[in-house]
């Protein structure tokens, strides 16, 4: 009844181009932003920040990044973990080499460095396509993890081979290190998510995004109508790696604090982000958030139910989690291959007709 365009008059071209054409959508979006920025920081506690909100925000950035590459540009990548590791180690080197530099810029520059590495590993995509490319990106995954393990310069010759985030503050609020408060960690990540999601949304509906989609749908045809595959594919790799690099930097500095590269950024991490993109919905920014929320919340939920509620041993709970995640992925692909985003779209279509079905 309320959820439709009628009555919402557009008098300027700018109005016609807005991201949320329906008023209720717009209001909902503002409300969510307001709650996220103004309410949540005051009520959040350590458990919610560390177990749910911070990983959710950080992994949404990674999922958006991967979604740009796979969902918008159609280049399947299994190297997400490796690129996140680049972001993390770049951030660590920057934080320790330039203690004066603001953590905000450290994270941004780490994203930039990851973008360069991403372009380098994206070069083969000009020759290799489909599954061959997916497997080729595994080269990045294994090589980068090996590199950060073997070259002591990257972890400042520390004896354990781990990297530890030193304490850094933004406006006198600590955001990294063990003494950072839940609210400041959360807000720091939220700022990045907000800016990056906004950029991603606008990139994907502009010229750049359209050329990505043209390459995804059929690269030869796109080439014929004048889309430069070199520029398009490499820009997708660059933007995607930039996002993933920032996610990696935040994952290390804000969320984990101490990282052992094979554990935190192994192949499982790559698959986790990939699942987020698939379950959320390929080619959808909202889907990236939905997928990240789903895969962050579900293990927490399952653990609470099985270990906390039923009192089963943790190893059985962990195995069951694998079974359930795997089963759910297959289930989702069968029921709705376009993911949660498509369900959301269908729900909105239904809502626009409600309460009159025609």
């Amino acid at each position, binding site marked *: 009844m309320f959820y439709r365009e009628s009555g919402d008059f557009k008098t300027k071209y700018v109005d016609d181009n807005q991201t949320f054409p329906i008023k209720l959508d717009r209001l909902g979006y503002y409300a969510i932003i307001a709650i996220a920025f103004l309410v949540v920081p005051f009520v959040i506690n350590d458990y919610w920040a560390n177990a749910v909100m911070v990983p959710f925000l950080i992994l949404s950035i990674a999922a958006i990044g991967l979604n740009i590459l796979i969902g918008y540009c159609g280049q399947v990548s299994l190297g997400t973990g490796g690129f996140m590791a680049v972001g993390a180690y770049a951030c660590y080197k920057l934080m320790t080499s330039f203690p004066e530099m603001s953590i905000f810029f450290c994270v941004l520059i780490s994203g930039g460095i990851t973008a360069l590495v991403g372009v380098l590993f994206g070069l083969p995509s000009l020759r*290799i396509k489909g599954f*061959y490319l997916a*497997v080729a990106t595994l080269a990045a995954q294994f*090589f980068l993890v090996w590199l950060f393990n073997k070259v002591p310069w990257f972890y400042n010759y520390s004896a354990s081979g781990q990297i530890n985030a030193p304490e850094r503050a933004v406006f006198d609020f600590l955001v990294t290190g063990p003494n950072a408060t839940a609210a400041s960690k959360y807000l720091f990540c939220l700022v990045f998510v907000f800016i990056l999601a906004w950029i991603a949304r606008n990139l994907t509906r502009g010229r750049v995004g359209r050329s990505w989609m043209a390459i995804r749908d059929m690269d030869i045809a796109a080439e014929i109508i004048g889309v430069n595959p070199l520029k398009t594919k490499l820009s997708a790799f660059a933007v995607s790696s930039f996002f993933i690099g920032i996610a990696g930097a935040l994952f290390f500095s804000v969320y984990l604090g101490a990282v052992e590269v094979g554990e935190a950024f192994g192949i499982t991490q790559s698959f986790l982000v990939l699942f987020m993109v698939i379950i959320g919905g390929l080619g959808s920014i909202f889907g990236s958030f939905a997928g990240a929320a789903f895969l962050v919340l579900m293990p927490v939920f399952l653990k609470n139910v099985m270990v906390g509620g039923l009192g089963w041993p943790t190893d059985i709970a962990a195995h069951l989690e*694998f079974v359930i995640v*795997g089963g759910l992925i297959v289930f989702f692909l069968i029921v709705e291959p376009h993911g949660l985003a498509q369900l959301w779209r269908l729900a909105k279509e239904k809502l626009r007709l409600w309460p009159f079905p025609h």
Partner: protein
Amino acid sequence: MSADFLYTLEVILNGLMAGVMYSLVALGFVLIYKASGIFNYAQGVMALFAAMTLVGIQTGQVPFSHLINAIFGTEVHHFGWTVPAVFAIILTLGVMILFAFIVERYVLKHLVNQEPIILFMATIGLAYFMEGFGDLMWGADIKTLDVGIPSGASVWLEDATIGWGVEGGGFYGFYIDKLDMVAAVVAIVLVVTLTLFSQYTTTGRALRAVADDHQAALSVGISLRTIWVIVWSIAGFVALVAGVMWGSKSGVQFSLSLIALKALPVLMLGGFTSIPGAIVGGLIIGVGEKLFEFWVGPLIGGATENWFAYMLALLFLVFRPQGLFGEKIIERV
């Protein structure tokens, strides 16, 4: 002959043997890819699952004992009997065929006509599912698998080759694991059998027809669903063989499922659609990574085996995007 040369020769021989082991896993991938266009990521986990089931049946474990104990507070773990290896293998094969049926019935049937990437994701989901399911069923501890395959150094070969080195040169003959030799023989037999099967039997011809063109195969009366069950059963059988070989070599444990990741560069190198490609690719990768580790590894910190295969495959692909033996990729607008 100088010791250095002989060492290099030994490294190459061991590389060939390792390559055969990779090829065993890669074969399963190729079979499924050819027949259904599905890139089956779960192949490695299938090998792990097959090996676990084999050990479980052999030692008479109670399936899901951990889960049963956790729910009912009981203390069951073994039935108290052991099953001879041959019967256990046959039973495990039965389980893998049953698995093929279930996959076809509950997963593939619903995913007909989806994009390849969706099918690929489905097999990753399947891999996760089986990994958790296998652990739940048989427990996550490391098991030893013994079906009577000889292992250890081959004394005969060492004795035969010890005379090749210079007197006092520190060369004691080639060291090659007996198990690797058995694996090589098994791989050869497997490839020959599979080739004969697909060339000369009715089912084999049907398999090739489906591989060439799904619709044309359907129109001459070949049932796609039956073919898929058969292909997944054969892949399950190959997984069982690979699982037995790898399991006897390094124990049945989670890392066994990671051999799938080892098989991927083999596939890229050989081409996804070629059975001989899987073998040749495996041999090249096996020798390449052993030689690289032997020559360059010490200079750059070692453990290069994790990524060298991928880099090698990547380089090959830049020059031949469809792999060495893959069908030429023709694109039409």
